[in-house]
């Protein structure tokens, strides 16, 4: 599903965010990216949805090397990838329903599909009955659930999550993790960058550890350390 081959990404001569990184993720896997601040986790995720391009190496996603993908194809790549962020990135002037529907609207899903799938996914993330609220009328955990619903509503092959629990208290964070785990069991590949030691240690999934842009550990059923 995902394969990186000797990927090097630098933002400038001094800042080398990733150095010669290679790994492979199979369909349906759940992978934690861990490492100290500035080690290149977010950069890795941004390479996977072509927000950034590496100087060297190949990035294979769903059977395609996306490094040299023509810009016109990138939107279609992104329809196969859901994104969840630490700061949710919800649109404050839209309701919960509209925020999720937006992800379908802008890729041209017909209205009857939207009317059917948005409530279903909101139900899945546990937000049934809160469709008409605005983001500022929700708790942090609920906002993150909206964001997960938006990332998942188009049934992506891959879900990328960048510190999705970073702003949440442990109990709320666990709820989000259960949700991501459930999404993972539907066959969606999940790659999640995190600092949350407890979560990594309880979930016991594959762990890829970065240090100053270099992969220093790749461990199945790993722990945070």
């Amino acid at each position, binding site marked *: 599903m995902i394969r990186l081959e000797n990927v090097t990404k630098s933002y400038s001569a001094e800042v080398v965010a990733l150095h010669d990184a290679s790994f492979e993720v199979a369909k349906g896997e759940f992978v934690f990216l861990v490492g100290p601040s500035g080690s290149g986790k977010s950069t890795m995720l941004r390479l996977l949805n072509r927000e950034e391009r590496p100087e060297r190496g190949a990035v294979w996603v769903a059977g395609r090397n996306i490094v040299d993908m023509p810009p016109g194809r990138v*939107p279609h790549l*992104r329809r196969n990838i859901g994104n969840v962020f630490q700061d949710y990135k919800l649109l404050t002037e839209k309701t919960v329903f509209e925020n999720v529907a937006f992800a379908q609207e*802008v890729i041209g*899903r017909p209205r009857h599909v939207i009317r059917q799938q948005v409530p279903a996914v909101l139900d899945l993330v546990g937000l049934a009955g809160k469709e008409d609220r605005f983001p500022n009328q929700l708790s942090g955990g609920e906002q993150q659930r909206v964001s997960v619903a938006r990332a998942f509503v188009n049934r992506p092959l891959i879900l990328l999550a960048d510190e999705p629990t970073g702003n949440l208290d442990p109990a709320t964070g666990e709820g989000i993790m259960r949700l991501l785990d459930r999404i993972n069991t539907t066959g969606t590949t999940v790659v999640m960058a995190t600092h949350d030691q407890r979560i990594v240690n309880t979930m016991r999934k594959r762990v890829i550890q970065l240090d100053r842009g270099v992969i220093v550990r790749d461990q199945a059923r790993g722990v945070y350390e």
Partner: protein
Amino acid sequence: MWSRLTYTLRETWASFQRNITLTVAAIITAAVSLLIFGLTLLIQEGFDNLLSRWEGGVEMIVFVQAQATEEQRSVIEEALAAQEGSIIASWSYCDVACSLEDAQRLFAGDPATLELLTETNIPTQYRVVPTEGTDVLTLRALREAYQDGLPNVLSVTLAEDQLDLISRLQGFVGLYTTGLWISLMFAATLLIWNTIRTAMFARRREIEVMKLVGATDWFIRVPFMLEGLVQGIIGGATACGALWFINNRWTAGVAEFPENSGFAALVVSDGYLNWVMLGIIAFGALVGMIGSGIAASRFLDV
């Protein structure tokens, strides 16, 4: 399809409201520019009407009495041919149909006179192009000779009487109005550009999310292009209204000028006016759409 359309229209309308001051400024500037553009075209057309019979270096016109027979005209043609090579470089005959067409342009603002001219009473014309280096005095002498010596000649007119002043006036007016509308169009484009940038900045979070969930650039761009298009069309329509009004007042005013003042030609036909108005709207629409499209593409990347 339907959901796309409603999405696009909703976003365009919302953006309009959000940006009302800048939008109004852009529309007014576009309208004034397009108005001056339209006026330039009308003025040029008016001058062209006045000068059309002098096109192609014609400097002398021999008017022939209406209903002169071909045989009678051959005397005139022989006289012209006799000078060919020395004073006259070439000459051509403007027959009844041609002369009627000429009158249509010349008396555009004077329908009463136009009405009196018919196939049977309109004088036809010989249009004469002199050789290079022929001076005015020679031409004047030729005019005298033709006027007095040739049968069936109604009158002979020389270009020097009106041509020089008018074409100089035309060049002067054309230069300044063109300069004016181009700079205003430039200002209008900048304003439209700025409206789009402001609109996109206001929606940058939305655009970020759209790109992340896989909206195509075109999908993101179209509402902004539509916004520019609508601005251009409203500007164009406003300019059309003003142009129509001004042209109307001018045409009415010209009708009251003394006959033979020459101003009757400085009026354009309704058909031409319609073309100009259509052109103005199309031009406004094009500038608005392309300007905003380019702006949207530029700010999509950042």
